[in-house]
């Protein structure tokens, strides 16, 4: 066959080079990824035990544990979501159902974008000054949760908005045409049909809260102890509520402090727990997106 025949593929050195670059980059990314997850998991799993998860670090009892941090993390997740979910869903409903396109909507969407782009350290500074000092909440779980509320708000708003958009207009006109008022229509038709989007947003928000550290270091502080429970139930409930005003470090903060002190075993233990949580959240998001699809 002649060399310049059209049936002969011309070799392009540039193509070979680029293909090689693509394969190298892709394998680098994948290896890094598996390496990071695998290394932290394997290195940390040795530290993780039942007592690591269920005790508080104490020199007296000679225990090293992260129960206090787990509880703090849960507190912050619950309080943040209690505030952020209604706000975010409400904002999405306004943007999708009430607002007419114009300057105000543009402003709201731009600020929502801006909020999601602000780095957590800035949220931390703002939370420390505004919630901590101006409102006088000090270093407390509540300060941390309020700060994180601002951070996760865009996530919930955007996911709810997207879900609302997928609800067909015929649902709206059907409900309104039958004489339902707007709020009634939103409550009984739109919200149930867009539940999957709301749930996805909430789960993503949990992921963000669990992984957050810079915004919490100067707002929620780094305490790791649990309130001492007594016999009386009323007193215990009171203590559980008062804990909101106490400082409390989450898992990530504990990891940071341990690694600062060079206690890498504990740090990897916490890291392992975090990775398992992140994995779980990832799977949950997928499940939520698949299972709770709007009714057809």
């Amino acid at each position, binding site marked *: 066959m002649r060399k310049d025949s059209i049936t002969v593929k011309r070799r*392009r050195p540039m193509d070979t080079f*680029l293909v090689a670059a*693509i*394969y190298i*980059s*892709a394998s*680098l*990314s*994948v290896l*890094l*990824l598996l390496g*990071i*997850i695998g290394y*932290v998991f394997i290195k940390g799993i040795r530290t993780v035990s039942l007592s690591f998860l269920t005790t508080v670090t104490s020199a007296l009892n000679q225990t090293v544990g992260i129960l206090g941090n787990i509880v703090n993390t849960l507190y912050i997740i619950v309080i943040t979501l209690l505030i952020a979910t209604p706000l975010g*869903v*409400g*904002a999405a*409903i*306004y*943007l999708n159902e*009430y*607002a007419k396109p114009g300057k105000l909507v543009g402003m*709201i969407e*731009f600020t929502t*974008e*801006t*909020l999601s*782009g*602000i*780095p*957590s*350290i*800035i949220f931390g500074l*703002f939370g420390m*000054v*505004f919630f901590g000092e101006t409102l006088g909440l000090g270093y407390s779980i509540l300060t941390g949760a309020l700060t994180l509320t601002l951070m996760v*708000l*865009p996530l919930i*708003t955007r996911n709810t908005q997207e879900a609302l958009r997928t609800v067909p207009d015929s649902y709206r006109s059907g409900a309104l045409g*039958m*004489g339902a*008022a*707007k*709020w*009634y229509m939103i409550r009984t038709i739109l919200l149930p049909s867009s539940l999957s989007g709301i749930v996805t947003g909430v789960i993503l928000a949990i*992921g963000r809260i669990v*992984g*957050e*550290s810079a915004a919490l*270091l100067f707002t929620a502080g780094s305490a790791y102890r649990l309130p001492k429970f007594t016999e009386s139930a009323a007193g215990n409930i009171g203590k559980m509520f008062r804990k909101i005003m106490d400082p409390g470090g989450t898992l*990530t903060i504990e990891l*940071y402090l341990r*690694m*600062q002190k060079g206690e*890498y075993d504990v740090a990897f233990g916490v*890291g392992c727990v975090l990775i398992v949580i*992140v*994995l779980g*959240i*990832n799977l949950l998001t997928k499940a939520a997106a698949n299972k709770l699809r709007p009714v057809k």
Partner: protein
Amino acid sequence: MKSETNASVIGNRKNKAVVETVAQIIFTICALFAILAVISITLYMIASGTPAIFQVGPKEILFGTVWAPTAAEPRFGILYVILTSVIGTFMAILLGVPVGILTAVFLAEVAPKKLAMAVKPAVELLAGIPSVVYGLLGIYLLGPAMYKLEKLVFAGSKTHQYTGGANLLSAVIVLAVMILPTVINISETSIRAVQPGIKAASLALGASHIQTIFRSILPAAKSGIMTAVVLGVGRAIGEAMAITLVSGSSVNPPLPFHSVRFLTTAIVSEMGYAAVGSTHRNMLFTIGLVLFAFIMLINVVLSRILKKGGAKR
């Protein structure tokens, strides 16, 4: 619930109207919250960032190279801190973006479907890993390796101050890895969104697959890729906890083997001991304000790109 019956189809008209108005007002307030938050963050950043500018003077702050906040005669120059953030971010982008885009090309165009389906969730997972975990690996694995490299490079040097592996280069590598998921995810989505006609036309004209990717598909996905890069810049410049320990602990000119301070790491590592009301603490807020200015700039650039990309469609 009483309001429920009122809002029903055959409900009392007057109450219904009240409920409707109240609902609308509540939703409007929820929506205005984002604006309120951004305005108050901006005002507070400016309010807490400016006192130090008056105390120290803008020239000393922006062009001073000596950072000695706790010295007898304190100096508050943050030129090197700003430069570190800018150059560190730039280097991280230089390292991370090509790898990220090529990985996205691999996932969207080259890889068999099954492989892509397996890799994609893993990349998404990587985006969710807490930044402190990256920091932990940086200090535990990268640090010692970097120290070895440092000893090799500066074997004969007598003037070099050893950093023990905590230097700009380590921080840049950590940042580059951290922006990978963002760059990969967004680039891949935009590559997949390119109209199939463009690819078909290019192939029909006799271009090879690789030529098609680099000459037709990537240019068509430009706005999405630009978005990915800008988001990567935002993530890198704003990252704090992952690089606090691996970047070292003193303010130096941003050279690869120098122990450096970023805008973010300066705040994290000094806020704990800066006395309330002191110029030192005020300066840390000024550093925060500088970072905030960078982020706002990035946001404006981003919304421009998004608008442009949207207009083209």
